[in-house]
């Protein structure tokens, strides 16, 4: 029996080996992985809050965000393939040290916010399990540090990818909740503008969590790492598009699940325990546990990948030695960054009565604010014929992406203004 199964498996493997399936798989990857890291605790929380506060009213944002995500990631992928250089590298070579330094400083700050939100996610999961954060967070921080510094990145990536299958739970839950599909489909294509500042905050959070600035650095670097060449561009596009669609589908179902189970019953998410109720249709009494597991998993692995990705980008831009195979003495800045992000991230979460949910949302908003800055540089780089040659952006591409950038900038300005005079937009 076992023999025949093995034979069968071997047969399949040989077949695939002959076709170019694995070739495709080996190129496809960075986009999917980026998409998976994209749905971190900050993401889950922001989508949950969106669904529970506004029901289906924010569903329409998913399609524009998806388009923006695809365009921007494609741009990053293309730049990586054509130049063979990471984004930080390109910015340094073309805009000099000063610009790079301040951008990297911003990136560190924003990514520190992201790391905070990952640890907040872990702490929230601990709450549901009934484990005190004062025990859980230090253990996780130390574990993550060892994983990053001594572990194999490839292993981390694989485990993380496997564990992110958890998001299927949301898809099933969303379907089991039996939303009125006609309404849902209608809402997807009907834009709503609610003139309330928190509505805009959530939109900004949705943009920030889905199109996070670190993703551009991460994606471009992993594509460079793979050593793809322009002939692989179409595979890479397929990869990026499928990754983006996965992100969008997960976001869609989290919002739907929350809208049906929470918004309809008048529950607004203020703690992680409430957000967990979105999984009731699937898991019943186990919903909280399932949710906590997902949050914990996403938190731990994003908290491992983010400091690493930040340290790589910053060292690349500043011209410092980097790499986990180097000794501390050889790459001090690299290890300082990783250690600093993890240690301070964990330490801040340990402050008693710190509002976990707010931290997660605010960090996503910060992402959204840094995004246009990075976008402007990306657009200028990918329009430079000297760098991109025949692969520079097309006119339609430029109009769309500049449009997106302007919209995000306008949103940022709105948001900043509403922060200083909170009553400005509240009409309702």
């Amino acid at each position, binding site marked *: 029996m076992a023999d025949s199964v093995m034979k069968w498996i071997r047969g399949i493997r040989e077949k695939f080996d002959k076709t170019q399936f694995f070739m495709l798989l080996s190129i496809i990857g960075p986009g999917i992985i980026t998409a998976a890291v994209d749905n971190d605790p900050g993401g889950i929380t922001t989508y949950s809050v969106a669904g529970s506060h506004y029901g289906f009213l924010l569903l329409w944002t998913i399609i524009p965000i998806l388009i923006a995500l695809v365009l921007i990631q494609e741009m990053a992928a293309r730049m990586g393939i054509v*130049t*063979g*250089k990471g984004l930080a*590298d390109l910015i340094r*070579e073309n805009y*000099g*040290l000063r610009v790079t330094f301040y951008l990297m400083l911003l990136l560190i700050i924003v990514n520190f916010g992201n790391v905070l939100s990952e640890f907040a996610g872990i702490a929230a999961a601990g709450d549901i399990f009934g484990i005190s954060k004062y025990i859980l967070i230090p253990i996780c921080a130390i574990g993550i540090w060892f994983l990053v510094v001594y572990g194999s990145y490839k292993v981390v990536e694989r485990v993380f990818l496997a564990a992110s299958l958890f998001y299927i739970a949301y898809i099933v839950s969303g379907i089991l909740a039996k939303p009125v599909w006609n309404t849902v489909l209608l809402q997807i294509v009907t834009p709503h503008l609610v003139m309330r500042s928190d509505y805009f905050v959530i939109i900004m959070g949705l943009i920030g969590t889905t199109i996070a600035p670190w993703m551009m650095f991460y994606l471009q670097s992993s594509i460079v790492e793979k*050593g793809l060449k322009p002939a692989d561009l179409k595979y890479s596009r397929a990869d990026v598009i499928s990754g983006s669609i996965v992100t969008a589908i997960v976001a869609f179902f989290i919002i739907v699940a929350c809208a049906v189970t929470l918004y309809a019953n008048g529950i607004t998410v203020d703690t992680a325990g409430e957000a967990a109720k979105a999984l009731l249709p699937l898991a019943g009494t186990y919903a909280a546990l399932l949710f906590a597991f997902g949050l914990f998993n996403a938190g731990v692995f994003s908290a491992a990948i983010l400091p690493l990705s930040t340290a790589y980008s910053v060292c690349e831009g*500043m*011209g410092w030695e980097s790499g986990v195979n180097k000794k501390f003495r050889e790459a001090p800045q690299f290890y300082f960054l990783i250690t600093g992000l993890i240690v301070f991230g964990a330490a801040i979460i340990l402050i008693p009565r710190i509002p976990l949910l707010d931290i997660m949302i605010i960090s996503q908003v910060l992402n959204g604010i840094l995004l246009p800055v990075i976008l402007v540089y990306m657009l200028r780089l990918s329009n430079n014929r000297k760098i991109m040659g025949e692969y520079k952006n097309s006119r339609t591409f430029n109009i769309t992406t500049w449009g997106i950038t302007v919209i995000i900038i306008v949103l940022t300005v709105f948001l900043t203004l509403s922060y200083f005079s909170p009553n400005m937009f509240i009409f309702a």
Partner: protein
Amino acid sequence: MRSRARSDVQSVSTGMSIEQSNQPSTSPSSDTTQRSTNAKNLTSYYSEENKKIRNLMELKKIKSNIKKSQSDFHAVKEISKFLRDIEDIKKSQKIIYFSRIMHMQVFDVTGMRVGRIKDLAISGGDRFPEVSHLLLHRRRKDIVIPWKQVKTFNTCIILDRPFSSVEKRAAKDDDIFLNDHIMDKQVVDVNGLKVIRVNDISLTHVQNRLSVISIDIGSRAIFRRLGIEKILSIIPFKVSDRPVPWDTVEPLTHSLEKIHLKVPCPRVSDLHPADVAQLFDELSTIERDTLLKPMRSDRAARILLECDPEVQESIIKNLKHKRLALILEKMSPNDAANLITDHCKDRIDILLKAMNKNRASQIQEMFLYAKGSVARYMDSEFIALPQGMTIEEALAHIRSLPTHPKLFDGIYVVDDDYVFVGILSLKNFILASPQETLGSAMIPGTLSVEVNYPIELVEEIITKYDLLSIPVIDGNGRIRGIIHIEEILDVVLDRNQKNESFEATAEQKEELRENTRLKRYYTTLSKDINKLMRELESVKPRKSEYIGSVDAVKKDLAQAPE
């Protein structure tokens, strides 16, 4: 390089003459007991060989020391010339950082503000190129004007004539600009075998010319360029400049190919293939391609063989069929076959078609043998001659050969059917009288392995009998190739690395690299430049230091491993 090679030859010949005096003669054994004594003879012969090699190495050391003292004279002359240069730098009292010059205001002799400096163009002077032009940004336009027309520059630049009479031209494609092409870019540090990022460029006046002397990769340059260098006096830890002499770096940008029209990347092309392979580890695919493109295919082949499997994979993936075929042709068939099975099975037919027929059939033959078999490791370049030939004839024949095997440690003697019968070592070949036949001078050999043996078996045989090489025969006893001990070494090392039982620490690796690298003369020189530059930076320069540094260089030279 050339003098090195000559000294090797000399030491070899000296080694031979010494051997002659204390070497017991190898007696030809009688025919009846031949088989049993052959192996013994062979082992004794090979242990002799080992001893000889040890002796040779001793001799080489002495030789190279003598040679060093000769070249010392030359070195001191070079250094004193360099010190004179440095003396000049000292007179002018400072190193000028490029970041400070950037965006300086430019005035003409009448005091009219004409614009800002946008960039500096360099030219000539392979060691330390001088600044030839400056790129002026005036009214949103860029104008190139010659540096010669600059009268003074301190906090701003003053031209020596009214702006209207300044020679002006537009920037050309073959101008090399510091900011555009060097600053903030990645360059190869040929000494450290590393890719480094340029944080700043140091210029200085050498004989009234403004020349580039080094690039800076230290963190201090970052503070300087951000305009917050003053903070450094408050910070408790030391942040220093790390200058790298200009003549030991190699720019990587594509556009810089034009600097070295004749020899692309001359500094990298001086490196040993193993060093280039190490460098490739750090480069991106595009940068690797830039370096590989102008290389001759035999050099590319040697580098490719030295690379890590992942690097090999990515290089091969990016090579066009024709070029790859050319490179594979330059390898020994077994190496080529191994590379093809490992990395480009799918292109095998196209590649073989693109190669010359002879080589293609040799490589194809390799595919008949399994991957771990002896055939895949053997060197198929060797000299096999019939036993009836006399020494004299053999010598003439060998000399007339168009190519010679890379490793030539003896002659493999075969009978009329090309069946392997014995080995004639290089030593015995030279010692034998010219009229003797190969058959009588050789040590009748039985120690050989068959093509389809697993390589592990050869490993055992070679270590057991202390051999340096062993012939490979096919089923009919015909000789097909040679396994050299270095192949076995590779196999053993590879396996150990896979088992991770041998994990060299970073320092050990560094040390190994240091020792194996060809220490060229300017390694020590560049150390000195760094030292002097640091000294120049300090407030009170001590004059006596220069004498000391010549001595230091001399000492370094004496200690440097060959």
